[in-house]
């Protein structure tokens, strides 16, 4: 079995209201010096068998269309040990 994590983040120029709300809260709760918070999503995907190149390519395809919205988000894929 292989495990991949797809990280999805808003593009840097896109407003992140969620991150902003967290930034405010962290400040109010006394964490000093927070200059920015960005909130993102992760998808931890377990697939049976090996993650060969073909499937990795397919995963990239899906990460860029289904899992992220290319208009406002960027994604990256990392393999982790399950």
């Amino acid at each position, binding site marked *: 079995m292989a495990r991949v994590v797809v990280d999805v983040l808003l593009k840097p120029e896109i407003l992140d209201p969620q991150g902003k*709300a967290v930034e405010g809260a962290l400040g*109010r709760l006394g964490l000093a010096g927070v200059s920015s918070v960005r*909130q993102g999503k992760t998808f931890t995907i377990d697939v049976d068998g090996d993650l060969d190149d073909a499937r990795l390519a397919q995963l990239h395809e899906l990460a860029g269309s289904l899992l992220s919205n290319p208009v406002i988000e960027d994604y990256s894929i990392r393999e982790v040990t399950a």
Partner: protein
Amino acid sequence: MTSGMRIGVVTFPGSLDDRDAARAVRIAGGEAVALWHADADLHGVDGVVLPGGFSYGDYLRCGAIARFAPVMTPLIDAAKGGLPILGICNGFQVLCESHLLPGALVRNDHLHFICRDQKLRIESNSTAWTSDFEVGQEIVIPLKNGEGGYVADDKTLDQLEGDGRVIARYLDINPNGSRRDIAGITNERGNVVGLMPHPEHAVEALTGPTTDGLGFFTSVLTSLVNR
């Protein structure tokens, strides 16, 4: 006719149903007192409603940021001292985040926000907010939430059921995937109640599907008088 009882309604940034909750308190015969999130003072009220809405946009988790508001410090103390507190929807989420009630509320299982007239069965009338109902009474009040699925581990659920602390259950359909169809619960003492549907939207025949919601607000006034 007013009961002379003063019920506070907290406004957090992003609270939406605060006016409605205040109206419901007035229609039930109480005096509604506006409480401000940044003011760490309950101003001597006899009970508190944490209204629905999207406090802080619900951006982190519903109720997660509101739980740390200054007003919550005296409120949490007062809750432990027996002050009647009703958390509706977002208010329920705040109560869970504050650990005044067990469990948590998660994204609806169908992933959509849902607004519908929801049938409920009242399961307990031994709380400050449900004493005017009959056990087994069926009521219809609006439900509207995106993250209303009640979850807790089995042990907690068994304990809630065993102690009679499930106060209302969804009938006909489970609108959000709540475990064991739970729509509302209470703490051990019965003064703190969390409810996902919105009784404050069912207090006038003109604007609500029924006036079934009024019972929650008259209950607290009655229980305060009989205290």
